[in-house]
């Protein structure tokens, strides 16, 4: 009698929110959280985190470095709803209020190995010039009530945004039992580098 195969596969993600490039802003911190489908559940690690506040240094003026660790393990029965990491970056404005500087989201890579992702960060924009001035003056910028909206496709068509920076993330992915369940995730791509302005990584 054949042994029953596994019905659940595991996804372990470790890595870091490495750094950000926001040419116009300084003194930023970021929050991350994971968004996943109904068939997924985190089994270990932290689902959310807030980083330190980072500033530009005189030695390395173009980068804002967090080096903030990510460590989480999920279990699931279905790849639909594959986890996405949602990042929100905040910083002070001219008056000292904490305002949002960008939201971004990316799927956790699914082939085992090391992956670097650079994601664009965008903020919602007010439609009228008067509202833009009042929100600048009062320190209350348009922001999402729940940053998890950025990981969904529905309801995005009514939002106007402005993209104004990038965040670089590093992921190390390990999966268990995806092959036993019949899934083919393609070649595992070590040193894989994907992003809007970076060339594609080399095959193993």
């Amino acid at each position, binding site marked *: 009698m054949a042994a029953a195969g596994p019905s659940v596969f595991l996804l372990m993600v470790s890595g870091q929110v490495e750094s950000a490039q926001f040419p116009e802003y300084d003194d930023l911190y970021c929050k991350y959280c994971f968004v996943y489908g109904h068939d997924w559940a985190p089994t270990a690690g932290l689902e959310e985190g807030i980083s330190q506040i980072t500033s530009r240094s005189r030695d390395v003026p173009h980068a804002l470095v967090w080096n903030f660790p990510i460590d989480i393990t999920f279990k699931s029965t279905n790849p639909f709803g594959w986890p996405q990491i949602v990042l929100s970056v905040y910083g002070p404005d001219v008056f000292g209020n904490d305002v949002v500087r960008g939201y971004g989201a990316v799927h956790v890579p699914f082939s085992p190995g090391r992956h670097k992702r650079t994601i664009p960060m965008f903020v919602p924009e007010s439609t009228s010039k008067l509202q833009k001035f009042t929100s600048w003056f009062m320190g209350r910028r348009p922001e999402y009530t729940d940053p998890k909206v950025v990981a969904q496709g529905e309801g995005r068509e009514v939002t106007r945004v*402005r993209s104004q920076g990038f965040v670089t993330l590093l992921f190390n992915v390990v999966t268990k039992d995806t092959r036993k369940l019949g899934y083919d995730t393609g070649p595992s791509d070590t040193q894989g580098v994907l992003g809007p302005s970076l060339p594609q990584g080399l095959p193993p």
Partner: protein
Amino acid sequence: MAEVHVIGQIVGATGFSESSLFCKWGVHTGAAWKLLSGVREGQTQVDTPQIGDMAYWSHPIDLHFATKGLQGWPRLHFQVWSQDSFGRCQLAGYGFCHVPSSPGTHQLDCPTWRPLGSWQEQLARAFVGGGPQLLHGDAIYSGADRYRLHTAAGGTVHLDLGLLLRHFDRYGVEC
């Protein structure tokens, strides 16, 4: 039945002359394919880039198909529109690309085109906006009636798609 998961993002677009862009996307498959979970079409946010000229949408795509045959491999089709400060929309380009057929992560660049009208319509488009649009969206991803069209190039839509295949080796299919 074999299953295909398409998990990724419509990252953004470059090369368009207008700057506040959004994209209406959809997926078209053959008769042997059935969409088990995910939305088949959608519309992205409108982005006005501050840095560089790439408009970023970061629109997630998560589709789960079950299939009985290889014909009609899924195609993603796009309509890129620009929105001005008054809220009027103008067509910037149509494009389509097939979902890749090998498992793993892929970076795709999809070129776009827009229909050119007569010289009077082109002049009107330059001054007032508007311009001809397709009546039936299926000319974007099918070749059947394309010979009637005269088009000009638009920009490029960029996607990061990951493909997960299940049970294809049971049926002897090599991808």
